[in-house]
């Protein structure tokens, strides 16, 4: 007789341990994953970061190509220079971004979160560094459990040093959009202004802290978009979903086992989908608010399905409707074009086209008229009335231009005592004190509507008419 007995040991009841009153956030060790969607994410990491780190280094017409000069109140984006008066374009940009977020979320859930959000992109980069130094998931778990040793200290120090360096470089690049980056680098580190130093360190620290330490906590607890994106979901939105009908009942089995015969679904319960998840959820429990839609579980599961010889897509992008009705992929894709997405797309295209047209027709000449308030009118010579104004001529183009100034609205109204034409440097404002003269009997005493006409020499298209008033006193 060969019996196995399990020794029974009496365990003393545990001491009443102190129970934490708050949820303990357990550290997540995402496992490396390769596949179609991971490749896409890496492509977007490269694309966004080449643009982000590279743009400030481009030059254009002797200045930085993209520079948001807060001090001079001018935003330069390649050939375009935006002035505070152009704030409408910023509003349009925000509206376009919001509509794009609505559209993409309605179609395919949190694709922004999963592929392009800086939080995801930097976490991906920081995880890559972590993997290079500390190894993949299991090695990292082991390392963290180890007691402190020279090896552990060295690895950790190297990781944090590289993270800090990436963070700092990100901070410098970010500030480089507001202060010319070449000057910034030359002034490093001791001749930087106090605010530049602050923002470099602030963004450096934010990058290091968010991508190194906070990670999924940012998406779960801090990000407002994460929360309101879920209200844009509907039953036709593509989300990352586990096909329970195909997968259950789950269970481990050998590759040779026929799942049907063993009464099992296709899920082998290997937990890869849980291990690769950057927010640490189990997608098999259905759509959860923590899911950032990164599709790492799809890549992970597909690899297993391939090894097991099962069809891929046990976890896949699918809509709630498609999963319920077991409709084909074609039908699901047809539902992408539904009224909601069509309306979003139409609005998006219309506003983008409108903004594009407005931008291309933008008049680089702007004029403000300020009437002198100290004196309304004066008699400069018997029978001649003078009113005084200040014209602020803004040449928002980059070439210097010369302008002629005329006035109309009253018989005999003339600009006097001004050396014409008036030259204004590129991207500059010039204030021109200006006198208008009209015969006292040209019109009834009182306030009369007039207009200044400012025209660029040689560019008749660049003309502005700016209204003002001329006062004829009773004399």
């Amino acid at each position, binding site marked *: 007789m060969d019996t196995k007995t399990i020794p029974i040991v009496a365990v003393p009841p545990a001491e*009443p341990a*102190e*129970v934490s*009153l*708050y949820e303990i956030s357990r550290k997540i060790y995402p496992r490396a994953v390769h596949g179609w969607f991971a490749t896409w994410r890496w492509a977007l990491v490269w694309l966004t970061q080449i643009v982000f780190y590279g743009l400030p280094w481009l030059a254009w017409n002797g200045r930085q190509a993209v520079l948001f000069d807060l001090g001079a109140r001018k935003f330069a984006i390649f050939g375009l220079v935006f002035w505070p008066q152009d704030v409408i374009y910023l509003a349009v940009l925000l509206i376009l971004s919001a509509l794009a977020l609505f559209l993409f979320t309605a179609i395919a859930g949190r694709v922004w979160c999963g592929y392009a959000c800086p939080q995801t992109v930097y976490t991906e980069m920081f995880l890559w560094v972590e993997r290079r130094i500390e190894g993949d998931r299991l090695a990292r778990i082991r390392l963290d459990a180890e007691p402190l040793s020279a090896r552990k200290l060295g690895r950790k120090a190297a990781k944090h040093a590289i993270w800090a360096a990436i963070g700092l470089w990100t901070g410098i690049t970010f500030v480089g959009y507001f202060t010319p980056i070449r000057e910034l680098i030359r002034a490093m580190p001791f001749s930087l202004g106090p605010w530049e130093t602050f923002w470099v360190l602030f963004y450096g620290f934010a990058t290091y802290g968010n991508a190194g330490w906070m990670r999924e906590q940012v998406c779960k607890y801090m990000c407002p978009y994460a929360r309101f994106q879920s209200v844009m979901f509907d039953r036709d939105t593509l989300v990352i979903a586990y096909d329970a009908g195909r997968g259950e009942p789950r269970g481990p089995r050998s590759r040779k086992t026929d799942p049907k015969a063993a009464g099992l679904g296709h899920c082998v319960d290997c937990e890869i989908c849980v291990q690769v998840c950057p927010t640490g959820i189990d997608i098999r429990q259905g759509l959860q608010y923590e899911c950032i839609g990164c599709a790492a579980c799809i890549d992970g599961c597909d690899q297993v399905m391939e090894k097991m010889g099962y069809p891929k897509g046990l976890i896949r992008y699918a809509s709630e409707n498609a999963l319920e009705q077991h409709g084909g992929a074609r039908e699901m894709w047809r539902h992408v074009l539904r009224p909601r997405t069509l309306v979003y797309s139409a609005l998006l295209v219309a506003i983008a086209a409108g903004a594009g047209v407005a931008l291309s027709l933008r008049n680089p000449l702007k004029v403000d008229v300020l009437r*002198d*308030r*100290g*004196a309304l009118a*004066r*008699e*400069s010579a018997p029978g001649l009335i*003078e009113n*005084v*104004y*200040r014209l602020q001529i803004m040449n928002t183009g980059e070439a210097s231009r010369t302008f002629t100034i005329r006035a109309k609205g009253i018989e005999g109204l003339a600009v006097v*005592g001004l*050396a014409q034409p008036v030259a204004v440097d590129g991207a500059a404002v010039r*204030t021109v*004190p*200006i*006198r208008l003269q009209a015969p006292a009997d040209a019109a009834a005493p009182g306030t009369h509507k007039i207009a200044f006409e400012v025209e660029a020499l040689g560019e008749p298209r660049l003309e502005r008419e700016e209204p003002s008033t001329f006062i004829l006193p009773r004399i």
Partner: protein
Amino acid sequence: MSDFTSGFWNVWVIALTVGGIAFCAWLLLATGRGIAPPPDGAKPDTTGHVWDGDLAEYNNPLPKWWSNLFWITIVFAVVYLILYPGLGTFKGVLDWSSTGQYDKERSDVDARVKPLYDKYAALSVEKVAADPEARAMGERLFLNNCAQCHGSDAGGSRGFPNLRDKDWLYGGDPAKIVETITGGRLGVMPPLGAALGEQGTRDVVAYVRSLSGLPSDPLRAQIGKPLFAQNCAACHGADGTGNQAVGAPNLTDNVWLYGSSEATIAEGIAKGRNMNVTAGMLAMPSFKDTLGDARIHLVAAYVWGLSQPAAAK
């Protein structure tokens, strides 16, 4: 100097401030103490309120990170009150004041722009007026400081002299212009209505208008001439060409500060001008403290240049 009317308020403010901080610290200590975890099976402590029959709220202390933020604010408050004024009349060890900060920022800016002005301070007003860059600086200073009264084009208005013409109340050479801007001016015309009487005033008006070649009653002008010599010539000169030492206008050039109509001139003679003016109202104020010598130099050059045909381009 204390802003308080009595020493009591000083003590009152200090007591309230210190007491407030101490109360906050006590509150944090009293409520932040960890509550013992309930023994096995016992229900955790709740606030005692129950909603909808079964919804209760655990009476847990604030999380550590949260209460630590409050502690940081308390430390900040203490450090702040030591460094800066806040505790009654205590000035703080940094001796900071808003006036002091204003003065410092001003002198910082002055020090930064000094080289800009130094370049021109060494040059004569005439040379500065010939420099386009200096003229542009002078124009900006003029628009910000002078144009409110003299107009954006320096053409003046009723009561405020035109600075573009060749007519000067106190003299138009560069040194005089600098003197005017630095020290200010207040020209006063005394009322002569009582001395001259109504008829006498009208006679003097006729004479004064005739000096500038304006149409006037020749008979009245004839009568007005001796009256002028008696009452007005002391300031305006026997020939009416004025006296720049006292700012008495030249009455012969057909340039009128208040207007040339008979009624306006009669008003000026009868009631005087600037009699009830407190300095700084209609008077030309002193810009010594507002602008400082270096800027006045540039403004003077700009103003001088306005009436110089060669420089006025």
